[in-house]
């Protein structure tokens, strides 16, 4: 049961990510990315991270991606033109990426014992402890991040403002 769910959502995530690369219109790419995010939210649920799964949908899929689509629609961007400017990326890109993937994957695969299994209900989602951690141990990072968000708001307003 668990394995079946895992392969469904993992397959969906990889499929949507590949679709993001293949599609030439940015709106289709954005939709694929939303698909990836939704599949990841399901995987988070399977890992017992209920709160993170909900926040993933609310923040990423519900706010950040809406912003992306809003900008794409606002700029009325058409299909991507393929310019072949960078020879290096064209020729060396794919092999280098494969090497990167195999390196990272083997290291990760070797590092973790095969008997460390994941199953439902082993590590149930705990929202209250996350809140407690966030406002006790991680209070300083939390405040710093809120200042960062404020700076980002001001920066975005200044950048997107009509010039006088």
């Amino acid at each position, binding site marked *: 049961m668990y394995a079946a769910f895992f392969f469904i959502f993992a397959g969906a995530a990889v499929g949507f990510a590949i679709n993001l690369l293949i599609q030439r219109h940015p709106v289709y790419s954005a939709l694929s990315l939303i698909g990836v995010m939704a599949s990841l939210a399901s995987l988070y649920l399977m890992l017992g991270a209920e*709160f993170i799964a*909900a926040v993933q949908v*609310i923040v990423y899929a*519900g*706010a950040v991606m809406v912003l992306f*689509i809003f900008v794409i*629609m*606002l700029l009325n961007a058409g299909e991507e033109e393929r310019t072949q400017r960078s020879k290096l990326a064209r020729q060396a890109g794919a092999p280098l990426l494969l090497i990167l993937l195999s390196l990272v994957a083997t290291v990760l695969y070797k590092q973790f014992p095969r008997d460390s299994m994941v199953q439902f209900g082993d590590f149930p989602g705990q*929202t209250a402890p996350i809140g407690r951690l966030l406002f006790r141990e991680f209070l300083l990072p939390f405040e710093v991040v809120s200042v960062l968000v404020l700076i980002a708001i001001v920066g975005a307003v200044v950048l997107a403002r009509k010039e006088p």
Partner: protein
Amino acid sequence: MPLPFIVITLIKAIVVLIVLMTVAAYLVWFERKIVARIQNRWGPTRVGPFGLLQPLADAIKLLTKEDFTPAGVFRVPYLLAPALSLTVALLAFAVIPFGPGFQIADLNIGLLFILAISSMGVYGIVLAGWASNSKYSLLGGLRSSAQMISYELAISLSVVGVLLLGGSLSLREIVSAQSGVWGLVPRWNVFPQLVGFFCFFIAAIAETNRLPFDLPEAETELVAGYHTEYSSMKFAMFFIAEYTNMVTASCMATILFFGGWHGPVPSFLPAPLQAVVPLFWFSLKVVLFLFVYVWIRGTLPRFRYDQLMSFGWKFLVPLALINLVVTSFVIALRA
């Protein structure tokens, strides 16, 4: 996973779906009747007694209409958008508790689930607006994305006060925390959280794109906004999604602020009938909120777009924030 669990959940889901579709259909009749009375007309009277069969006639009309796809649309998202709208609207009911035990799934993060699902609702509208490849639709889609992001913020902030009082994200526990009375007044969240309720309800009207915030489909300027290019069943799906969202918003207002299935007076019915009482109170409150929706629609004119945005950002969000700060102060002082 045990088989009986799956079967029982499926049955529950089907029952909720059927009831919901009926409610959404009759909500249209309800709205037309009430708005007609507000405007000193009669509304539907011809089909059946009091026009009660009108929803059926509407459904037949929409089903038999030609399913027309305009040239130049982006096909896949054009077809996907109405389905997405309706699916997302229905998903919210997976966690809504209609009474003690009358709930499809009791999630620990029920409230976050509802917020997450309703934040996905914007995609149906935005996609429809973009995929129709028409300027009216595009304008409607753009407006709705900006509007829904802005008012989502107000909704989330106004709900946090309730979370502080209830101490849980599970909708069932939020309702349970509102049982009992303070003297003569029931322990509903609306009394300590009046400001929060005010923010929540206004923002909920904006989230469901209802008058006076129906900018995404403002008939007088955008033809019909995001669903201009849709007809037949695809249009009907947007329509049902909108009314389902109204029901969701009313259910949420009931659960979060008006004590869910708890009645204002103790019931004195005999034991066998006792099980129906919570359902009765819940439905009564939901119908009341739906009436307020329709009443507002019949009374207020549409906002201008800049008014809508400045109202959301300069009034509603700060008000919800102040409410949150005051609530947490009071709770901290009493602890």
